[in-house]
């Protein structure tokens, strides 16, 4: 009979253990392994708690508010005296901020990634990477302040030709969210680009390609999965952004396609409703959870897609 080693966690034939000290050591090992497993399972508990906090009130909400009104009406006024629950204004608001943010962050982030991975000297890289890290570390409320008191008045209000931009605009919020997201796009894309085998790069150069041709013809297609993952992450982050949307796009759930106007997003509605103390059990209170569930579901799906995409294409090179 073999004495299986304690460190694989396989069962040990206890009566063959020579000393009490070894037996104690074995118990300690099992105990440690168990407590670490319990610790790790806490994260699963968190996800279950999120689901448990969102789903029951959302179900109650849809018992009180017909789906036809939720998905059929374009007036969102759930906290008013005579409430209306058409969700499209805040979904559209979220989409407008997100699209603007992606239009800003993806080109700029990819440019940063290309530059870092293909063009920059080690000295420039040492200068550029900390700047991206600084950008990534700035709190959202600081971006919100910048958007509200610089981007909106100086840029949007002055230069946006459609309508009459006021204090708030989805465009300003989108621009600022976009800048905030640049480091995410840049770092995920740059990881993908660095992972491209240098054989592909060198082969292209050997065949006489210019650096641009290598970037667009070799690196970009090869790193495409990582770049897509970066874009999906950017979309997900932009959709979930609360503070900037609240400060820069405002709290008026307007249903409009003009980004120069203020709008409310799903996340900023949740923040807004959370500030005003909604009585527990009221329909207004439950609206927070219904919108929260919608938001969580959308970002969950996006994150799963991003994880899958990276995993599927990573196999190509390994």
């Amino acid at each position, binding site marked *: 009979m073999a004495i299986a080693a304690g460190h694989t966690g396989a069962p040990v034939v206890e009566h063959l253990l020579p000393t009490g000290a070894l037996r104690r050591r074995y118990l300690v*090992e099992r105990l440690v392994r168990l407590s670490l497993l319990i610790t790790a399972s806490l994260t*699963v508990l968190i996800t279950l708690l999120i689901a448990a*906090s969102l789903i029951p009130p959302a179900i109650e909400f849809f018992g009180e508010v017909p789906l036809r009104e939720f998905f059929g009406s374009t007036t969102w006024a759930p906290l008013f005296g005579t409430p209306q629950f058409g969700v499209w204004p805040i979904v559209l608001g979220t989409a407008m901020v997100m699209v603007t943010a992606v239009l800003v962050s993806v080109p700029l982030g990819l440019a940063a990634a290309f530059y870092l991975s293909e063009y920059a000297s080690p000295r420039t890289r040492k200068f550029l990477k900390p700047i991206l890290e600084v950008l990534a570390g700035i709190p959202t409320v600081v971006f919100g302040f*910048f958007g509200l008191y610089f981007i909106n008045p100086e840029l949007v209000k002055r230069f946006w030709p459609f309508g009459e931009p006021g204090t708030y605009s989805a465009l300003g919020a989108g621009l600022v969210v976009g800048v905030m997201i640049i480091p995410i796009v840049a770092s995920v894309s740059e990881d993908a680009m660095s992972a491209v085998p240098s054989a592909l790069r060198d082969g292209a150069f050997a065949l*006489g390609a210019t650096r641009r041709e290598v970037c667009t013809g070799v690196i970009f297609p090869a790193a495409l999965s990582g770049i897509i993952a970066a874009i999906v992450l950017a979309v997900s982050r932009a959709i979930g952004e609360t503070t900037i949307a609240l400060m820069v796009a405002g709290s008026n759930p307007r249903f409009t396609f003009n980004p120069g106007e203020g709008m409310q997003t799903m996340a900023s509605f949740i923040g807004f409703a959370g*500030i005003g103390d909604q009585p527990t059990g009221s329909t207004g209170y439950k609206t927070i959870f219904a919108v929260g569930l919608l938001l969580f579901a959308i970002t969950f799906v996006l994150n799963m897609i991003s994880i899958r995409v990276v995993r599927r294409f990573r196999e190509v090179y390994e």
Partner: protein
Amino acid sequence: MTTVEAVASGDELPTELASTVSASRRAKDRSFQAVLAFALLVAFGTLVTLIVTTLLDGWDRLNWDLIRNFPSARPAKAGIQSAIFGSLWVVGFTALVSLPLGLGTAIYLEEFAHSEQWYNRVIEINIQNLAGVPSVVFGILGLAFVVRGPLGWGFTVGSAIVVLTMLVLPLVIIASREAIRAVPSSLRDGSLALGATQWQTVWRQILPAAIPGIATGSILSVSRALGESAPLLLLGALAFVTYNPSSLADGYTVLPLLIFKYASDAKAEFHAVAAAAIIVLLAILLTLNSAAIVIRNRFQRKG
């Protein structure tokens, strides 16, 4: 230089090779580089503009009174002391709780878990998902179960700690895992070969070697918690708080939310206070992140 190096560096090519790269291709190469440089300029310029405008707005209100005073209805007397202590309490305890839990999870996943087993894969995917959940959803969870509901702690420091811990935990786990992974496997293998058990190896060899990485990751997670605003909106941190917390059951406010409050105030004089508070917040974060970078650089050279 070889042909490959010449083409790759984008320099002028030796004349006998000039015809291999047509003028139009070279022009496209140059313009692409210009586009990249322009894009980077825009990004960098926005960051600089942000910093400069904030400094211009807040510089006049930046004095010791700002930190000594509590929030007030009068802009000239308004300060941020309650927010600084509130942040200290909330973030301090969050770090105290989340670091051991996160580190323990990371140790389990890296050293003890076999990735073929289904529950370990569930744990891993779950952590990746949690890292992508919008922060406001954690606020909803806190509102439902901690502020109201089963725990019923209300708008207190304790509620904030629970919620922020859940939010920061995935980040601590991911950072600690990378730190543990960076420890050379020769250390692990050698220890095991000498007869140490797994836990002995982890506790006496791997953890000490991974401490710089863990410290860096922890500092970055803490600074993330310091800057959080969205979930705390739902946890009552936007209140007008004129005292420092003295227990976990006290009301509180945190710096990002006090900034939000001042910035949203109808009176324009408060906006300068908000800008000054932003400068203080950024200074704190800059100090923390620099500490993290210093730790990372100092110990990377040894490794």
